[in-house]
């Protein structure tokens, strides 16, 4: 790490997004009044440019830059593209919404872009400090966005809760980073201790660890920090309240982008650095012990998260709250893939999940109308035949979340369960994990169907007029629908790319 390794290309996507965000804030400050469309279009162009910049990095297999802070590999690019997709979809579904709600537009788009920048840094990080920085950039932007409807008490509550609990959990993460730094101490090496993930990986793999106790403690503390961000049980309690109170497009952002970015960092640290993978049960040695402990912890966490999310979701009456618990459950499914040590299945799961979930929230946003008023499931009674397009699209998204074949939800579940089953040859618990996972999926049908029951089988109790759908939102919805179907019917190209990405990273070991 003698070289500084400055490479502007390596951080081009992040640079573009931050610059565009700053430009939007400047226009907002100096121009008399910023047009929604101008800010929106500028943000969109910025996002597309960042996406193109990400694509231009394809094929750089693990180059590091900035003293090893940033790494460019296909892991980063794949997750980066997921974040860009999230940001574009959120932008499309909220373009009109900001206008209707009379909210300040400039800051909204700028914050959205900052949040995306943070996410991109999290997937690009090759250093624990960098992960922390990315996490904070995202978190601070989303804390503000949660309370964006400042005249609404629910929105305020959501922001305060998220902020307090979020800061608390970040402290755990930071403490864990410190522990790991200490654990990596080695007097004869340069540097003597490190937060660099590649060096950490090397030292863990070769057993050059100052103290395994500190390694365990550090990993456990980081598990808490990441567990909070992905809303995994038992660190999930914040999410239903925050999701319910936050403005709907922001709920969509929290449950998709912020969750996916936390998974990216989670996988980067636990799968790619600690090399947590199911090791054979009879393997001995302190390293195998460490990996087995973490794997088993992740298995327990996955079971708790799936089961709790699904069972509590069944009794919810508010659709945003229900989707919050469903989002917890989905974090549990993705954890199955993570516990199996297969980041590629997690990445595909997140890709599918963000597309479906943003689609579902887009519809909830339209039905809820101004001020997020109608979010009870009973508000959906009888809309199936009054607003057939919206109801059919929502049904598609909900069924896809439940995991019906031919949609993204099924393919992603299949992939994580498949990798878990493959892991079962080393660790028998994975067989049980798969069975518990499929039983959970069956349970989840019940609450997803409840919404469909309300939409198609019940008569409306309150007057319902088909809402007006703006062109931008319609575009977002169509992208989400096509994406859900594309990932379900013809996932071949993406899976091939993902497989190559996984193999190229595995080769470097």
């Amino acid at each position, binding site marked *: 790490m003698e070289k500084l390794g400055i490479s502007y290309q390596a951080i081009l996507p992040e640079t573009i997004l931050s610059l565009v965000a700053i430009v939007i804030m400047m226009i907002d400050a100096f121009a008399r009044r910023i047009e929604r469309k101008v800010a929106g279009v500028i943000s969109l162009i910025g996002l597309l440019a960042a996406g193109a910049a990400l694509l231009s990095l394809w094929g750089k297999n693990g180059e590091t830059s900035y003293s090893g802070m940033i790494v460019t590999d296909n892991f980063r690019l794949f997750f980066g593209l997921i974040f860009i997709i999230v940001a574009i979809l959120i932008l499309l579904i909220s373009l009109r919404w900001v206008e209707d709600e009379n909210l300040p537009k400039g800051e909204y788009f700028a914050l959205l872009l900052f949040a995306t920048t943070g996410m991109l840094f999290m997937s690009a990080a090759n250093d624990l400090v960098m992960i922390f920085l990315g996490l904070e950039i995202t978190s601070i932007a989303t804390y503000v966005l949660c309370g964006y409807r400042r005249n609404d008490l629910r929105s305020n509550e959501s922001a305060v809760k998220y902020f307090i609990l979020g800061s608390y959990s970040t402290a755990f993460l930071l403490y864990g980073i410190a522990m790991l730094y200490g654990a990596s101490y080695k007097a004869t090496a340069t540097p003597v201790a490190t937060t660099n993930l590649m060096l950490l990986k090397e030292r863990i793999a070769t057993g050059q660890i100052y103290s395994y106790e500190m390694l365990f403690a550090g990993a456990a503390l980081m598990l808490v920090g990441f567990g909070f961000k992905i809303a995994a049980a038992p660190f999930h309690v914040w999410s239903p309240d925050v999701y319910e109170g936050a403005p709907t497009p922001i709920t969509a952002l929290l449950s998709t982008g912020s969750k996916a970015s936390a998974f990216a960092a989670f996988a980067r640290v636990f799968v790619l650095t600690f090399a947590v993978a199911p090791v054979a049960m009879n393997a001995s040695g302190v390293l195998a012990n460490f990996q087995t402990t973490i794997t088993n912890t992740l298995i327990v966490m996955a079971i708790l998260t799936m089961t709790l999310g699904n069972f509590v979701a069944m009794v919810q009456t508010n659709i945003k709250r229900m989707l919050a618990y469903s989002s917890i459950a989905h974090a549990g499914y993705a954890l199955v893939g993570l516990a199996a040590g297969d980041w590629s299945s997690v990445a595909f799961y997140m890709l599918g999940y963000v597309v479906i979930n943003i689609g579902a929230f887009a519809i909830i946003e339209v039905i809820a109308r101004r001020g997020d008023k109608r979010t009870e499931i009973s508000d959906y009674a009888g809309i199936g035949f009054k607003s057939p397009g919206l109801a059919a699209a929502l049904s598609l998204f909900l069924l896809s979340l439940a995991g019906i074949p031919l949609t993204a939800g099924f393919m992603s579940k*299949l992939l994580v369960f498949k990798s878990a089953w493959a892991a079962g040859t080393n660790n028998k618990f994975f067989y049980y994990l798969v069975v518990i996972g499929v039983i959970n999926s069956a349970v989840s049908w019940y609450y997803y169907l409840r919404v469909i029951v309300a939409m198609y089988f019940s008569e409306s109790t309150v007057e319902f007029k088909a809402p007006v759908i703006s062109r931008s939102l319609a575009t977002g919805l169509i992208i989400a629908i096509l994406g859900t179907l594309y990932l379900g019917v013809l996932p071949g190209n993406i899976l091939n790319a993902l497989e190559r990405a996984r193999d190229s990273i595995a080769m470097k070991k």
Partner: protein
Amino acid sequence: MESYLLTIITVLPLVGAVALLIIGRGAHPNENNLKWTALFFSLATFVLSIAIPLGFRATGGLQFDANKEWISAFQLGVRYHVAVDGLSLWLVLLTTFIVPVALIASWNSIHSRLREYLVCILALETGMIGVFIAQDMFLFYLFWEVMLVPMYLLIGVWGGERRIYAAIKFVIYTVVGSLLMLAGIIALYYMHGGATGNFTFDIAAITSDLKSGSFVLTLAQQRWLFWAFALAFLIKVPLFPFHTWLPDAHVEAPTAGSVILAGVLLKMGTYGLMRFNLPMFPEASHAYATLICTLAVIGIIYGALVAMVQPDMKKLVAYSSVSHLGFVVLGIFSFTEQGMQGALYQMLNHGVSTGALFILVGMVYDRRHTRMIAEYGGLANVMPVYSALFLVVTLSSIALPLLNGFVGEFLILVGTFTSQALPYAKLFATFASLGMILSAVYMLWMYQRVIYGEVTNPENKRLTDINGRERLVLAPLIILIFVMGIYPTYFLARSSHAINVIKNFVNPSSFANTQNQSHQVAQTGDSVGQQEKSGE
């Protein structure tokens, strides 16, 4: 040689559904246009499907193959592989036949949301055909699950009073079973891939590797996999005690829904048993045959007894399905050629006869809006043609010789009685025969109360006999009842090859002394299990 016939047959109803969505736009689409469009597409599907038995070689295996790579990444090896063999041939035809019949039968009974109703039925048809022709486990599972949605909507939107309860019960029961099957599919895929290096979901490839011995499942593995698959199928059949969703779903579903449910959907369960469980897990099938046959016989008698006391005609027919499907399961697990041929034949019979019964009940329901037996009586006086046709169907259902039901039930009973592989086979056959007697009791008693006697209820005096459309619906069913009863050879000859293949899979020649063999396998299986335990 690739054939696109099956693909066309599968996709055609879906094309019809899309066409309906397009022409049905606007506030008040012309109802007749919608109905005729739907009927056109389902009839076209039927006509095309007639080409299958005509071009079918009775001694061949999978025919009309289409096999294309679909998803290859991550060793998934998913292929679009469709084909028919003797097992699926007639079930595909049953499907394409029942759907237009169901459409005509409910021609005037649905007025609200007609377009969506027709779309659901056509989408359902695609799913059902797909299940029977899929030769890839992934594809099979896909059709199996996707089909749930239209059926769910059919019950939930156009059903009776307790439709929401019935619809949710139907879905949850099915999904619990099918997701366990998914776990089984993944497990089987991995075990097979690990043993042979060929990661594939192809059913034929896996069964033939099992047969040739290049892929061996221990008895312990077979037991787990057997139940992962069997649970999904037995719930669908439905075997006692998993049957409770069926009466609810049948009673609440609209007539066409009941016809399709009884006619085709239930057969997917028994089809699955014959396609997966018997050939793939033969030792486990033998090990559990006694248990499953016991449940089947309980189902036969229990279903018949409960049917006897039903005041509601539709519920009576629903419980009679539990009884009839018990026969099918019994036939399958007799492991004899007659038994399995009879089971397959009984699936077709049940589809035709029970479909016809639901249609007949629907006809008087459309007139009187009640299905209570006590509300009727003496219909022979006012509806003579209806009564005559009803009699034929009733007799077919209770298996009168020369009608279709007889052939199936006779073969099943003979097969069970002579079965070497099934323990207590004679006992099972005896009790099952009791079920046949009971079926005569409840069907004839119902017929007597509804049709014979004087017209006691004044409202029944004004009933009109069935009209031309209704005769048109029943005619093909009645003809089939006779044809299948008098000339079963045409059907059985085409299925016998496939049945023999299954029989050879499930009763390998090395398996001659079943008891000994399974005992040995059980021992080795146990020792493997112990090794695994000690490994932990």
